[in-house]
């Protein structure tokens, strides 16, 4: 009988080259593997056979967008300094006694104190240079499948759909807590996610922008308030959007369950403003509305 560890070893050893996508990142070694084979050989789990077409979006970024973004995101030294100081600012702690931490020898290696008012400290950006131009790092596509609560096989449809869209094998997401109302228990497989970067990312972006987004019904753009304050923009899609992808449209009948999914654009920008600027360059539309169907005010920064 194949044990789980043995199966893992087999997955590491063999890679699927043509129609079936690569299984990603199973980097744990079996006991009789001394080390992973080098990444440029087909044996290795991280071997990428090479891009199969020109990447329109990537070429456009390098030829046009990067220069324009450099100019648009250029800040004069004064405002840049203000922004860095704002990010570096240490908020007052909850307890005043913590302020005497330096004097107290017993408190040397204690963890940093919690800020008052539950304020977050966002990452501090480096000094601006041609290397800090906002760039699209990766895209995370995630799918939560409610039907998997009563029947685990519904996950398969989601996994297959994400694999067809992104050309990468998704991993299963397990629930972190249980909710009795929805009959959800902890550590239950409830969704799937996949993280794509490089050539698969640019092809996915291309499909999205050229084919899916123009054909979506009653969709006016990503709300302009979307973002995690650090340059990463996310958007959600209804189940009808899945059928618009050419990979799924050709095989529509084979998917038992059409699920909605969300897409998270991970950028190197340090503000939402710059992240939106980058994505608008890739022709992703933004709308001043906060939510679909409601009027929203334009958020300045």
């Amino acid at each position, binding site marked *: 009988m194949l044990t789980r560890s043995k199966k893992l070893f087999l997955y590491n050893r*063999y890679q699927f080259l043509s*129609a*079936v996508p690569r299984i990603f990142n199973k980097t744990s070694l079996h006991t009789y593997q001394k080390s992973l084979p080098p990444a440029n*050989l*087909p044996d290795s789990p991280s071997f990428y056979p*090479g891009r199969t077409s*020109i990447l*329109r*979006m990537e*070429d*456009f970024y390098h030829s046009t*967008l990067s*220069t324009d973004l*450099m100019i*648009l995101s*250029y*800040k*004069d030294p004064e*405002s840049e300094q203000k922004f860095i100081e704002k990010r570096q600012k240490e908020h007052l702690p909850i307890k005043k006694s913590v302020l005497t931490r330096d004097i107290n020898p017993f408190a040397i290696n204690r963890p940093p104190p919690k800020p008052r008012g539950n304020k977050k400290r966002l990452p501090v950006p480096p000094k601006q*240079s*041609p290397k800090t*131009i906002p760039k699209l790092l990766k895209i995370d596509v995630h799918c939560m499948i409610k039907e998997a609560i009563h*029947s685990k*096989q*519904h996950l*398969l*449809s989601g*996994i*297959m759909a994400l*694999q*067809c869209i992104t050309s990468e094998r998704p991993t299963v997401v397990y629930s972190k807590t249980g909710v009795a109302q929805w009959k959800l228990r902890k550590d239950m497989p409830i969704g799937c996610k996949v993280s794509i970067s490089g050539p698969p990312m640019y092809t996915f972006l291309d499909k999205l922008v*050229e*084919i899916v987004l*123009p*054909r*979506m*019904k009653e969709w006016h753009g990503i709300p302009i308030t979307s973002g995690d304050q650090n340059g990463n923009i996310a958007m959600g899609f209804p*189940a009808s959007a899945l059928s618009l992808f*050419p*990979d799924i*449209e*050709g*095989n529509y*009948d*084979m*998917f*038992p*369950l*059409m699920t909605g999914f969300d897409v998270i654009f991970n950028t190197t920008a340090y503000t939402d*403003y710059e992240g*939106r*600027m980058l994505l*608008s*360059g890739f*022709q992703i*539309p933004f*709308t*001043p509305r906060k939510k679909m169907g409601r009027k929203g005010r*334009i958020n*300045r920064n």
Partner: protein
Amino acid sequence: MSNHFSYRSALSTSIRGILARTVKKSKPKSEIPGSQNANITDTRYQIIKRILYETPKTELPKMTEQDLERHETIDRAWKLFLRNQQEERENELAAKYRKLNEANLELEKLGPRLFNSAQIGNKIMMFPRQMKIPTETPPLNGWNYDYKPLSSDPTKNSKPLPSDPIKDSEPLPSNPIKDSEPLPSDPNKVSS
């Protein structure tokens, strides 16, 4: 729109053949794809499970020493090419940035009014929605001679809302070679 993704599925032809044959046999009429109350004993799930986890593993190419050398040489050459390309881009951007910085410092010396108006500040800067990302081939619909410029209101959606995509969309783009008018005859040719 120039759609260079074929409508062929991501699966290989052999697997699609297996799928087509099994689906014809066992799919009931009342089954609607995407329904919430999907049949639990749906055979499609078994097929998907087989495709995802039980496909036969493709044989890895067995490389001889010479093959390995060739592979490594090609790999190194490609990486070198990418590296040179990257360095070229970096140098170009660095030079542009240096000039931009110098220009800004010069402008600061000239006076506060010009300098402040040149800074972006709180303006909303986004790329225009009408910008076209270059494609390999020109569009199927050709040049739009009836184009009207945008209204000045930025909140209005520049592109018209899509009409019902299920009714209006065609499964395949029309063949531009077949459907186009016949080529104009050569004026210099003597008509017989």
